């Protein structure tokens, strides 16, 4: 996940990482990880809570708690948050196919979840 600031909206966090922030902590599938106070939505001196604004979370603190690496390119003002290692120590944390949508050749979005109801062979290839 590439971000241009350390505070990320909860909807964006869930859409891009699969992690949702709930009262019991950060949750993904059946796993929930309790969060420290400074990782809770709109915690910290820089949170800038606005009554009408969507809640945000400091992704660097959250990532540390979840075992997700964060690399920072200061020259370009970018952070990249990598995948978690804390759940299974494997690429997959569950056997459920991730909710991924990718474009076809003409740019039409295609949700892999639309293939439910049939067996699927997903074949990854490359021009290289």
């Amino acid at each position: 996940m590439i971000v241009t600031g350390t505070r990320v909206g909860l909807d964006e966090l869930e859409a891009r990482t699969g992690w949702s922030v709930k009262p019991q902590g950060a949750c993904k599938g059946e796993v929930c990880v309790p969060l420290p106070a400074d990782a809770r939505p709109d915690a910290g001196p820089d949170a800038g809570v606005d009554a009408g604004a969507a809640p945000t979370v400091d992704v660097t603190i959250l990532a540390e708690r979840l075992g997700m690496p964060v690399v920072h390119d200061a020259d370009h003002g970018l952070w990249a948050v990598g995948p978690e290692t804390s759940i299974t120590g494997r690429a997959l944390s569950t056997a459920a196919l991730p909710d991924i949508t990718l474009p076809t050749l003409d740019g039409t979005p295609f949700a892999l979840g639309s293939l439910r109801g049939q067996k699927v062979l997903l074949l990854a290839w490359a021009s290289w």
Partner: protein
Amino acid sequence: MVTVALDLGGEKAARRWIEAAQPEHPSLIDHAHVLDEHLGIVNVPSGVWIDEDGTIVRPAEPAFPHRPTFADVELPPETPAHLVETLAEARKIRIDPDRYVSALRDWVAHGPGSRFALTPGEVVARSRPRDADHARAAACFELAQHLHRAGEPEAAVPWFREAHRLQPDNWTYKRQAWTLVDRNQGRTGTFEGSWLDDVRAVGAENYYPPLDMPG
């Protein structure tokens, strides 16, 4: 079947291959290598089996439908030595398409009763290991791609190199980056290694892991 092109070049890189194949199945483009990270794909071609409920029953593994056609190619005499050596090394790569396709057909016919279908716990356990270095490599690779797509290819190079350093057995990271400088993935001053050098270093017979399937 659904095919996914893992290509930073996006539609431009994948188009001629897809159009030549004239597929009747969904052919998707993953220009940000999202699937690599989600499914633990480190080389291509890789196959993932998914059942009717959206549950993975076999994680990413080498998936060849047949013996590659390049194995029988006769190169013209004027072919540069580097390409001759590359093809010779590629011919040593071990794959087992007959076994893979046979297993796939068995699963299609028998579903969860197939001896090739894994339980969810087995699927997770057999997916690629991911330690702190691997996770950091994914973050570096994503940052490199982002910078490259944003028109900053030189800024992307250090992040590609760091991804390669952190996860040297990830052929997807290497091959994608090498191709950005040299489509033949030869030696350049931009990245360390080359396809030929790196394959020789690990042994062509180890380029893909053996299929972990009952015989």
